[in-house]
């Protein structure tokens, strides 16, 4: 029954549709008939159509309009095909879509079939062929140019072509452009009663339906047109906005608020009403209360009496229709009386009293299933969980089911005093702390909450982040990667190495005893005489001074021709000779201090030189000093080709090595023999910038320190014996243990490397005691001590015991940090040297002083 109802409804609907559709057929035929006679205004339309260049191809409007009465469908189809875009149509569909008799629906279906239907409104395609040409140019507004009969169509075209010509986005503000236009166009028909003018098929129908003169097709167009022409004021008045049902704020920023039927802009009133106008209007206009502002046309409309009445009725909640009676007596559809007789006289079916076999079968199946226990009655559901003794048979040795790698989650941190509702006052944050807390990121905060103090328990509010915290804990439990970390609980005292007490390692210098003052610039180099009575120092103030160690008296001052880079006292106690280097000169001085015998024997030694027969070309010129220079103590002058940085004596006191750092040549180190006044360059190859050199105290070895390595050469065999890797960036100084098996290297990167030559070519120990670059290192001749001076102004004395037992490693213990030098120009101690016999250390600094620590 219901289905049937639906069906009937459906058919009704269909017929309704049919009804809706049919009128056009009736409607559209008339024009053809109308148009055929050449005398009527119709032909004008055709002629214009034909006059257009594209009409040569296939004026579709014509084809459509003309063919139906005479030609069958296929013909129509072929015209379609002839058009360039008919390719897009599947032929079958096109055929289907163009029933010869019904132009209206055809339009729509084709329209839908085409993908670019927005661009090609079907009405246009069919009615006005040239889709490419903008209408307004060709067709001035209909009513003016065209005779009445055409007017309708040409306006059509005009409207359409304008639509087409305009990029859609002009119509509506960007963004909603394309769709909204489309919509607008679709929406307009229902709202416009005069939508005859609108090209879309639906609009056409609806007007047609509403137009009363439908049955008289002959007069239709004329009637309309007369109506149009008769009331030009209507046209001018009826500036309907074609934008459709869109939010009007889209037009807020434009001077117009839409387009009228001719596609012209509707402009907003030039001056908006302001508050004052509104007020005046309110005061003066008696109809002000019934004036309503129409947004779409931006005009005020005065409501008529009927409209006002309608509004009142609606406001009261009454029906809009005055004539509607809501209290009509109700009429029952069915009687409430029970009738005793059946409605029909039909006898009962047989099946209504014979038991159904199918049902019986079903029941017996169920019965069987129940008997067999296949079907069971539904159990009542357990709502509450059942608990029992889960661990009744627990195995104490069972490990966690999975594996041993289980890392139990850490427990929540227990609250401290600051979390109390009434904490001691010191746990509350001060104003600045609170500000800082608020500005911190939530992750950086030390406390995740602000400590607060409440005077009583009743004043404590709920904690707003409670659920958050629980949730975060949940997340931590299942998302946070866990790792077992070994936490070493080390007592920091245990980390400090157990060293012998410095007290037990005495003697070593502990206090500053003497300051040798006299130099006016930084003292680059110092050296003690082998007897330990004198000290020589060379400074940047171009002087060499000789001091008496015990008194601190300056015995002698010698002016030399440049900043003194290095001084070295001859280690041979039988000779009193000092080597001084400045610029490219090495000067051998006889200071004339100490034992007179020694002094004179030294002079004799120098004068006793006999030049050899054959004079060899030497790298260095030896010159004997005479005259006043001789009186000053100058004995020999060795003029080097390059600036000399360091001079160093061999232990026996006959050989002297000088260093001329130069990265580009092999002439960096020269070894001079004083007694024979001979000079030789031991190296044929350049192995890097030489920093300093040194002789082995006992054996014929020669140590050359380049920037990062120390090379040990055997002078007799003339070969490289060892290359020590210092692991430093830049070596500054080097000292050899008097035993000859150990070596220390100071570097500019604050390190001191101790090498055990027997052990390895790598440092036995790296000491990073100093805070700044090391400038000088020194070993004591007899005591197991070594010292290092650095730019931080301190001299560190270490106990460095070397055992005769080869298996025992040297013992290195720092015993004293000596401070005294002032740091000037970021330079502290420049050179250190030990007293040859006493456990004393001399240090020269950038503060132009030499200090003695005893």
């Amino acid at each position: 029954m219901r289905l049937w109802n639906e069906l009937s409804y459906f058919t009704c609907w269909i017929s309704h549709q049919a009804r809706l559709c049919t009128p056009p057929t009736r409607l559209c035929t008339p024009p053809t008939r109308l148009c055929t006679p050449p005398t009527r205004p119709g032909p004008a339309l055709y002629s214009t159509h034909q006059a257009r260049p594209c009409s040569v191809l296939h004026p579709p409007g014509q084809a459509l309009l003309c063919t139906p009465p005479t030609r069958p469908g296929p013909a129509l189809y072929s015209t379609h095909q002839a058009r360039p875009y008919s390719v897009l149509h599947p032929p079958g569909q096109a055929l289907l879509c163009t029933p010869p008799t019904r132009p209206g629906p055809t339009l729509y279906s084709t329209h839908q079939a085409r993908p670019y239907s927005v661009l090609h409104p079907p009405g246009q395609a069919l009615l006005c062929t040239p889709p490419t040409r903008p209408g307004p140019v060709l067709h001035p507004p209909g009513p003016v140019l065209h005779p009445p009969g055409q007017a309708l169509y040409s306006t059509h075209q005009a409207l359409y072509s304008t639509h087409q010509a305009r990029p859609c986005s002009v119509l509506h503000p960007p963004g909603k452009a394309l769709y909204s236009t489309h919509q607008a166009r679709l929406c307009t028909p229902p709202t416009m009663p005069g939508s005859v003018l609108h090209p879309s098929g639906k609009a056409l129908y609806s007007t047609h339906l509403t137009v009363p003169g439908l049955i008289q097709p002959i007069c239709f167009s004329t009637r309309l047109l007369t109506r149009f022409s008769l009331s030009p004021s209507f046209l001018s008045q009826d500036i309907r906005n074609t934008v459709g049902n869109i939010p009007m704020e889209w037009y807020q920023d434009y001077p117009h608020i839409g387009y009228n039927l001719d596609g012209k802009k509707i402009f907003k009133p030039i001056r908006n009403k302001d508050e004052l106008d509104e007020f005046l209007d309110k005061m003066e206009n008696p109809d002000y209360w019934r004036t309503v502002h129409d947004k779409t046309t931006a005009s005020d409309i005065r409501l008529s009496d009927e409209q006002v009445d309608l509004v009142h009725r609606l406001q009261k909640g009454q029906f809009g229709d005055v004539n509607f009676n809501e209290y009509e007596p109700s009429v029952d559809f069915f009687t409430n009386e029970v009738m005793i007789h059946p409605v029909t006289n039909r006898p009962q079916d047989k099946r209504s009293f014979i038991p159904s076999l199918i049902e019986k079968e079903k029941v017996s199946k169920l019965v069987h299933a129940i008997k067999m226990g296949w079907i069971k009655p539904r159990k009542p559901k357990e709502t509450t969980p059942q608990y029992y003794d889960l661990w009744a048979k627990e195995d104490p040795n069972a490990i966690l089911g999975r594996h041993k790698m289980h890392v139990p989650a850490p427990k929540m941190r227990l609250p401290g005093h600051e979390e109390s509702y009434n904490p001691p006052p010191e746990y509350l944050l001060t104003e600045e702390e609170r500000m800082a807390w608020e500005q911190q990121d939530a992750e950086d905060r030390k406390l995740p909450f602000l400590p607060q103090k409440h005077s009583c328990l009743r004043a404590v509010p709920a904690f707003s982040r409670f659920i958050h915290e629980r949730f975060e804990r949940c997340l931590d439990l299942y998302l946070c990667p866990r790792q077992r970390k070994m936490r070493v609980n080390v007592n920091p005292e245990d980390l400090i190495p157990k060293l012998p007490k410095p007290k037990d390692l005495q003697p070593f210098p502990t206090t500053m005893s003497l300051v040798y003052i006299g130099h006016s610039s930084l003292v680059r180099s110092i050296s003690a005489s082998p007897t330990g009575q004198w000290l020589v120092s060379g400074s940047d103030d171009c002087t060499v001074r000789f001091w008496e160690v015990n008194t601190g008296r300056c015995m002698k001052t010698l002016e030399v021709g440049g900043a003194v880079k290095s001084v070295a006292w001859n280690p041979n106690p039988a000779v009193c000779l000092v080597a001084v280097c400045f610029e490219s000169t090495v000067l051998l001085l006889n200071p004339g201090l100490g034992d007179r015998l020694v002094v004179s024997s030294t002079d004799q030694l120098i004068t006793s030189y006999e030049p050899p027969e054959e004079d060899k070309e030497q790298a260095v010129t030896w010159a004997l000093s005479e005259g006043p220079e001789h009186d000053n103590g100058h004995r020999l002058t060795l003029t080097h080709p390059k600036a000399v940085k360091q001079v160093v004596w061999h232990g026996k006191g006959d050989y002297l090595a000088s260093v001329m750092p130069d990265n580009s040549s092999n002439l960096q180190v020269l070894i001079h023999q004083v007694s024979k006044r001979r000079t030789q360059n031991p190296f044929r190859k350049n192995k890097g910038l030489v920093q300093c050199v040194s002789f082995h105290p006992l054996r014929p070895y020669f140590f050359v320190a380049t920037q990062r390595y120390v090379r040990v050469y055997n002078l007799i065999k003339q070969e490289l014996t060892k290359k020590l890797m210092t692991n430093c960036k830049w070596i500054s100084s080097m000292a050899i243990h008097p035993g000859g098996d150990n070596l220390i290297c100071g570097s500019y990167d604050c390190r001191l490397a101790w090498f055990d030559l027997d052990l390895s070519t790598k440092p036995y120990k790296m000491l990073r005691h100093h805070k700044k670059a090391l400038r000088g290192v020194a070993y004591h001749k007899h005591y197991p001590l070594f010292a290092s001076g650095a730019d931080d102004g301190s001299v560190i004395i270490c106990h460095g015991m070397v055992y005769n037992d080869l298996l025992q490693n040297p013992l290195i213990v720092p015993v004293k940090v000596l401070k005294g030098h002032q740091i000037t120009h970021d330079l502290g101690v420049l050179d250190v040297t030990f007293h040859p016999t006493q456990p004393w250390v001399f240090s020269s600094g950038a503060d132009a002083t030499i200090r003695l620590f005893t």
Partner: protein
Amino acid sequence: MGGLQKKKYERGSATNYITRNKARKKLQLSLADFRRLCILKGIYPHEPKHKKKVNKGSTAPRTFYLLKDIRFLLHEPIVRKFREYKVFVRKLRKAYGKAEWTAVERLRDNKPGYKLDHIIKERYPTFIDALRDIDDALSMCFLFSTFARTGKCHVQTITLCRRLTVEWMNYVVTSRSLRKVFISIKGIYYQAEVLGQLITWLVPYQFAHDHPTDVDYRVMATFTEMYTTLFGFINFRLYQTLNLVYPPKLDSKAESELKAEHEEDYAMDSESYLEKLSALSASLARVVATAEEEEENQLDQFPADGEDLENMEAREKEQKEQEAQNRLFEGLKFFLNREVPRESLAFILRCFGAEVSWDKSLCIGGTYNVTDETITHQIVDRPDIDKQYINRYYIQPQWVFDSVNAKMRLPVEDYFLGVTLPPHLSPFVEEKDGDYVPPEKLKLMALQRGEKHVQEEEEDDDDDDDDEEYNDEVDDEDLTEEKNLKKMEDQRSQGKQTLAVKVTPGKVKPWETGSVGNKVRLEKEEKAEEKRLAIMMMKKKEKYLYDKIMFGKKRTTREANKLAAKRKAHEDTSKAEKKQKKAKKQ
């Protein structure tokens, strides 16, 4: 040479781990199901030792699970249940779509469910394991039991949580195992010692929750699902150990007492019963009707000597203290005013043997009235009360909490109505040496040792002259100390100066002329220098560690100093205010 070349990342730690996405694919589960499974089974990501190796050379942030864990999940029967549930949902949706209501009903009836019993047993092989891990479960259940029964989660879950928490509280009351309580700004912390395990939980204040939007309640619900199961089994077992009936039943005596009134106020019997249980005022029924008094579990005396004996004695002492604490409020009769948090106070007081009652309109289960003459303490949280009885103390609730933490009944004077309360300290903080100890804690410790000093000071607080004297004394002490310090400093600086001066004229070494104090100082200096020199000889690695440790130590002392300074500033200002007031009075 020879042999196949081993490829990278095909052995070693790279094969022991699996990324989350891979694990999910292996298990063929959606992310939500995988999450649920992980929560229920207690599977968590592991941080590999060498992340780059495991991550096949990439350093992208990824979470890794142990491959063993995931393999272990493969055999989990619950995974099948998840799939069944998915099918069920699909069928149900289809039935709804087709409007087949009978089918919907049938499907609903056969909704697949699952049990977590085996998972609990597997995750916690022994009871103690489970008990150790119950902290989070307790906090979660207490939170869920305070939720409103709308939205957020199923009503059944809320009622179940409530039931379990009430059971737990009843157990703690009966076994008297509560140890510490703490009122924080988040809620109230409780710590109980159950079978030797310390269990801490947090209960939020009784307010409606402002449910946050950025919290995933599904995760919380899954956790709660697991926790309730675990919690129920634990409760069962705990009740069994005390010979109590599970689910808990009220004592027949108590039941008859409570039966009389209010029965008609409740729609359901079960509801009223839960309320009665949650009132915590009555004792529970036992399986075996034993005599009322608890049998004292005496420690057996073992013949022991030396260290064992000492240990034994210490243990005995501890036991005694424990018993004393358990009887802290025994014999006292409390009455709770309506503005105090009834449940927490009733719970705490009952845990320590007090009798508690409250207004009848507040809750079911009040046993006596305000007018009862035998009430010893009334807990009030308002500035003043109109009608006061002479023979009872009117105290603020903090007294109960502080007394429990102090393991003794504190003097009630500080907690009277309208009195500014002393700070409430956390009982969970155990100060090591070097940490800052608030003065209140020191006072409390003195009180616990039985010293009367603090009492005097309190008296001092009353009359200002004494106070000042006392302060003067303190000041004097401070002064002397400061003087000493200054002297030391002076000497030191002098020493330095002399050192500097000495070099030029070449005087004798300082330690030969020094006085006794000087000698001590010199010795100290020497020690310090020795240490400094030794530190110079440390290896790089050890030096780094040492520096780190020392940095941490310094930070703690700095913090402690900061707190102390703050306290001092606060006290100074308060003292100044006091003086001003006094001046005004005069």
